[in-house]
């Protein structure tokens, strides 16, 4: 009979947590229309709160799996980016870039009110640019929303993530330079990560569609090939110390330009994608250390207000110029609220490559993350509903 009970409990914790998360996600969605991802986050947070064995202990392989899960989302996000749109409507691109820069500046300045080092403030600022692709894409897919708010949120989210990775890695490079004075190490920590990740992603973005055409792969199998390519990309990124997230986003953007069609039946990579999303959100939430939440709450709330204000402000200001309305601009800015997995995994990855302040930054951000992970998707969902871009319009 079972002798090692704690071990059994530990090994069962993960699958059980995921199962509970899934059921809770469906149930709460049905009753109160809570976005599913918020429920997943809630389960992860609870697991972390009660210190569920197996969930909070470092389990090897989980960060990798989380990176695969998020990379799939980023690939899909990249695939939805229409570069031609930026040519026809440069205001969308300009909005994304200006808003990213302003968010960076505003968060950097605001964090000056608190007692923190410049390095940490720069990291906060660069991470605050990002919006959560996982939260936004998942909520948009769940609602099957379509329209200007949806399009703009996705495109802005991609720009935000790209600028965020760029800024983040430059800050990491700067840190390496200022702590070690080693230019080579600094360059490795930033330029190499940025350039090589983009190059590898782009290369695969050209190679995969070529392979699909050469082998005359059936339309419904295209998704499988892309999913496997993303797994390959993540593995390569680990091996070469690259950013899997940046590589996956580039992969998606380039693959789309190569005009291979994904079938609409498998948005979000179908069932496999659903499974990985549950895991991703439970995992990310379980990384939060509750002890840090209280101390950083005021700081977190200030950053949220500043971040939201710049995103909404820029979006409203550019709305009419870019062919939309102020109302939709406001909703677009609000829908960009979620911020979670992308920022956390970016930090995790940098820690893996020797960026020491990462752990400290993560704990200082705990309060902000808690709020944005849990309520960000709700804001996105309400914004899309208010924009009447969802599949059921009740009037």
């Amino acid at each position, binding site marked *: 009979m079972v002798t090692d009970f704690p071990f059994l409990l530990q090994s069962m914790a993960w699958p059980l947590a995921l199962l509970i998360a899934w059921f809770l996600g469906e149930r709460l969605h049905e009753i109160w229309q809570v976005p599913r991802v918020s429920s997943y986050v809630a389960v992860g947070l609870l697991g972390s709160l009660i210190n569920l064995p197996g969930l909070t202990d470092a389990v090897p392989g989980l960060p990798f799996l989380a990176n695969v899960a998020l990379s799939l989302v980023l690939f899909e996000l990249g695939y939805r980016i229409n570069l031609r749109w930026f040519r026809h409507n440069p205001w969308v691109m300009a909005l994304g870039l200006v808003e990213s820069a302003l968010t960076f500046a505003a968060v950097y300045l605001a964090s000056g009110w608190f007692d923190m080092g410049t390095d940490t403030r720069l990291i906060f600022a660069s991470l605050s640019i990002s919006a959560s692709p996982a939260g936004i894409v998942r909520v948009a897919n769940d609602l099957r929303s*379509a329209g200007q708010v949806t399009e703009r949120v996705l*495109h802005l989210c991609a720009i935000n993530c790209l600028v965020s990775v760029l800024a983040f890695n430059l800050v990491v490079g700067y840190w390496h330079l200022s702590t070690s004075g080693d230019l080579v190490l600094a360059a490795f920590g930033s330029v190499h990560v940025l350039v090589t990740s983009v190059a590898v992603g782009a290369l695969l973005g050209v190679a995969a569609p070529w392979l699909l055409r050469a082998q005359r792969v059936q*339309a419904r199998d295209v998704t499988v090939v892309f999913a496997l390519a993303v797994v390959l990309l993540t593995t390569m990124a680990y091996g070469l110390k690259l950013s899997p997230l940046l590589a996956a986003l580039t992969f998606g953007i380039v693959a789309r330009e190569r005009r291979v*069609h994904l079938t609409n039946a498998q948005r979000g990579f179908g069932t496999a994608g659903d499974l990985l999303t549950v895991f991703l959100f439970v995992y990310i939430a379980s990384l939060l250390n509750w002890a840090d939440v209280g101390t950083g709450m005021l700081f977190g709330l200030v950053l949220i207000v500043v971040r939201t204000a710049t995103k909404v402000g820029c979006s409203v200001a550019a709305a009419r110029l870019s062919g939309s309305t102020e109302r939709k601009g406001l909703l677009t800015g609000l829908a960009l609220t979620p911020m979670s997995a992308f920022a956390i995994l970016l930090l995790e990855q940098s820690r893996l490559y020797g960026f020491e302040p990462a752990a400290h930054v993560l704990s200082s951000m705990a309060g902000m993350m808690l709020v944005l992970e849990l309520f960000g998707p709700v804001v996105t969902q309400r914004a899309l509903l208010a924009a009447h871009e969802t*599949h059921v319009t009740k009037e």
Partner: protein
Amino acid sequence: MPLETFKASDSLTMGVELELQLVNTYDMDLSSSANDLLELLRRKPFPGVVTPEMTQSMIEIATDVQREHGPLLAQLQQIRDTLVHAGDRLNIEIAGGGTHPFQRWFEQRIFSKPRFQQLSGLYGYLAKQFTVFGQHVHIGCASPDEALFLLHSLNRYVPHFIALSASSPFSQGVDTLFDSARLNSVFAFPLSGRAPFTLSWDEFANVYFTKMESTGVVRSMKDFYWDIRPKPEYGTIELRVCDTPLTVERAAGLACYLQALCRHLLERSEPPPEEDDYLVYTYNRFQACRFGLDGMMVNPKTREQISIREDILATLRHLGPHADALNSQAALDEIERTAARDGNHATYLRKQYAESGSVQGVVRASVDALRFGPKA
């Protein structure tokens, strides 16, 4: 409420309405973006009329009243360019075609005008299957009796318009084997089909319509989904069997083919229409929907079988002088090329499917055809 008076208009004037698809640029599915597009279009003068339709993924455009092919085509091209440009600003593609090849009807939202809400309440899933895209051509009539005369005289030519315009071979992701799958959706409506046979407006309005109204089934002409119906408030008859073609050039060609045909019919050199013409009507219509230009139709007067393609080419030979009078030779050339050589747009779309191997590729081809014209 009795049927409104037929407002006489200039004979042989014409107007074209096109229902167009709004498609996302990402996986080529229909995009519920009509509100956004209309909002943007409202900011500048539009070279025609643009209105919301049944679902958010469709818009309808209409030309002004036109007399000749040249100005009609020019206006349609202007409308197209304006739409395509606005679409580009909003990351929306615009396409012709009678059906979207793979949209799933249950995911389309019904537009929120009260009439449409009421329709979807009444027709249930049919209302959503009604996400099909047609071209309507109005022809002006000098009197209501002229309207009924033209309406019924055109019965034998209806298959021509179905076959020439057919551009909906795919539906729900599969090749339906029909050239116009769209019309199958239209036929599902209870008041679709043909108008009752009468050549007197007085009888139509005061006997037939009054009786129908007293049954409570209809309240206005809008409740009839006939293939050709009179439109008293415009003083026109409206041909409704055409799929929206992939190009505005084809749309203008079809309108002017109808205009020339009506001019021919108004000479009254053909035997007058009669109820028995309709004996073969649904058979002919089926042949046109299913086989397009290769369909076989029965001439209601001679009872002879002839391929629709042959019948169109034979008709075109009679229309030369009318085309000269109406200045629409270029339009009839387009129709002749379609019938004799190029085939309809259903054929074109099937070819695109064979080349690209996916229904998304078909939508891509439709989008490009509207913007740039079909690939050679």
